[in-house]
């Protein structure tokens, strides 16, 4: 009875997805199929994607002390991992990852290509297998950046570019890209990838080096930054970022900046600390607290600095029961851009028992070259049937592969990329391997 119900619900949702599909040739982000997993009441109208991740255990976010630079490690309850930036060259991030038992990374995000964010990523990419690298697509001309590209190529990591309104899926955790907007300006900092993660009642905003311009753009955007319990302060606490209007919107309970002790730039600037105090945030910095680890089960959170106390305000010690930050803002589709390559994941078999067969179907522009990456706990699947394919005359493409008998059960990300005429578009989904 239950399975019949589930099937009806699934067909219903797939139908809605198909009906709701926008015409190809747009970059509209479709709801990911992981939202269709499991039975849904048939009388519930299709909801817009809320991009809220359901907690399944303790999520860890490490704001790693890399001196003057940024590096943030995110570990999911089931052991998936993502690194946002890698600090500057030779600042010990590889050692930190290894000492924390990280032997592979599912996703590496380079917020922008300045050396204090990607320098360490070159070493990470050389030392640790990385399934996927995400950037904003804006190049620079430094040797450090060129090495970064070379190591992505050498390590055969999938390469994906994101912009406002896109989502990044890590083991069922959905990161919403709030910035940069579709059109990149010249300034590298202001084009930083800004990510928002909602984990139950606790939310995170990772600002990269976004500055006042990017913050103003996010304020004006319909993809609202909404609120965040924990804010990774923009640009190392520089006065170029953390505008009062932006902080008033984000209203962080905890603000963490990453800066080197005694750095020559004067980060964090006193204006920023004052602005953070004004909104009542408890402030930690890697310059005074070393690595800061936030652990959350989605209801409450704990901030564990390696050393010392928060730098203020003293009245706002980390609460055992923090003010919950409820509800994510629905993300409207970004404006279509004409002539862009479209790609929609139409269906995927889920759940699949170990040893079973899965099929994913997608629709894109006829003649596009399409690749698929199925990422299990052990890394990308090497199964037969997952080879690159060319979309047929109607734009249809599908892959059928066998799930290994020893594949670890869980929700695993699938990334599909279509490329044509020097354009590439990637869509993410997940599927479930049952027990």
């Amino acid at each position, binding site marked *: 009875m239950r399975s019949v119900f589930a099937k009806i619900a699934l067909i219903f949702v797939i139908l809605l997805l198909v009906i709701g599909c926008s015409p190809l040739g747009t970059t509209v982000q479709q709801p990911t199929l992981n939202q269709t997993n499991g039975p849904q009441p048939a009388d519930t109208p299709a909801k817009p994607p809320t991009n809220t991740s359901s907690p399944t255990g303790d999520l860890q976010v490490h704001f790693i002390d890399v001196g003057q630079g940024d590096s943030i490690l995110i570990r999911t309850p089931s052991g998936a991992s993502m690194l946002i930036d890698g600090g*500057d*060259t030779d600042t010990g991030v590889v050692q930190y990852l290894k000492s924390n038992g990280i032997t592979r990374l599912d996703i590496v995000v380079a917020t922008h290509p*300045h*050396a*204090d964010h990607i320098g360490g990523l070159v070493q990470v990419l050389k030392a640790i297998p990385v399934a996927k690298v995400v950037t904003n*697509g804006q*190049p*620079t*001309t*430094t*040797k*450090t*950046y*060129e090495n970064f*590209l*070379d190591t*992505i*190529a*050498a390590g*055969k990591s*999938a*390469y994906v*570019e994101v912009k406002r309104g896109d989502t990044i899926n890590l083991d069922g955790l959905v990161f919403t890209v709030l910035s940069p907007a579709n059109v990149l300006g*010249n*300034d*590298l*900092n202001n084009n930083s990838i800004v990510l928002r993660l909602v984990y139950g009642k606790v939310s995170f905003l990772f600002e990269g080096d976004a500055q006042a311009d990017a913050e103003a753009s996010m304020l004006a955007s319909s993809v609202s930054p909404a609120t965040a319990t924990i804010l990774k302060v923009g640009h190392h606490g*520089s006065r*170029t970022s953390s505008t009062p209007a932006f902080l008033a919107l984000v209203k962080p309970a905890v603000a963490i900046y990453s800066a080197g002790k005694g750095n*020559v*730039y004067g980060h964090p600037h006193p204006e920023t600390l004052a602005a953070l105090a004004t909104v009542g945030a408890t402030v930690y910095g890697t310059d005074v607290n070393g690595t800061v680890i936030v652990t959350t089960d989605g209801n409450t959170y704990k901030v564990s600095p390696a050393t010392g106390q928060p730098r203020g305000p003293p009245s706002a010690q980390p609460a055992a029961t923090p003010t919950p930050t409820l509800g994510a803002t629905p993300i409207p589709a970004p404006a279509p851009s004409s002539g862009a390559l479209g790609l929609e994941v139409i269906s995927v078999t889920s759940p699949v028992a170990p040893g079973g067969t899965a099929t994913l179907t997608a629709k894109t522009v006829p003649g596009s*070259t399409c*690749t698929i990456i199925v990422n299990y706990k052990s890394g990308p699947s090497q199964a037969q049937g997952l080879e*690159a394919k060319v979309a047929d005359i109607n734009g249809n493409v599908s892959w059928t592969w066998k799930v290994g008998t020893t594949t670890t059960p869980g929700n695993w990300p699938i990334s599909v*990329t279509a*490329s044509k005429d*020097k*354009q*590439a578009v990637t869509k993410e989904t997940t599927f479930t391997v049952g027990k």
Partner: protein
Amino acid sequence: MIEKAVIDRFEEDMAVLLVGEKERKVIAPRKNLPAGAKEGHWLKIEFDGEKLVNAIIDDEETSKVKERIAQKLERLRQGKHLEG
């Protein structure tokens, strides 16, 4: 000695330069760089001890590197590095 350097970024009135093949980090006052110097520009620079005494924008090197990097980025975008 004249060396090659690239402007990684500006931090307010300071420029962060990456100097030479190994990209040694040097922080120099922005005012010591030529007017119009931007992030990503390659320079020919000269030090007197620690002090940056001369800097010229190297347009030729900047274009050459830009072009080479654009090709590498395009290969990644097309997923060519995943083939074979």
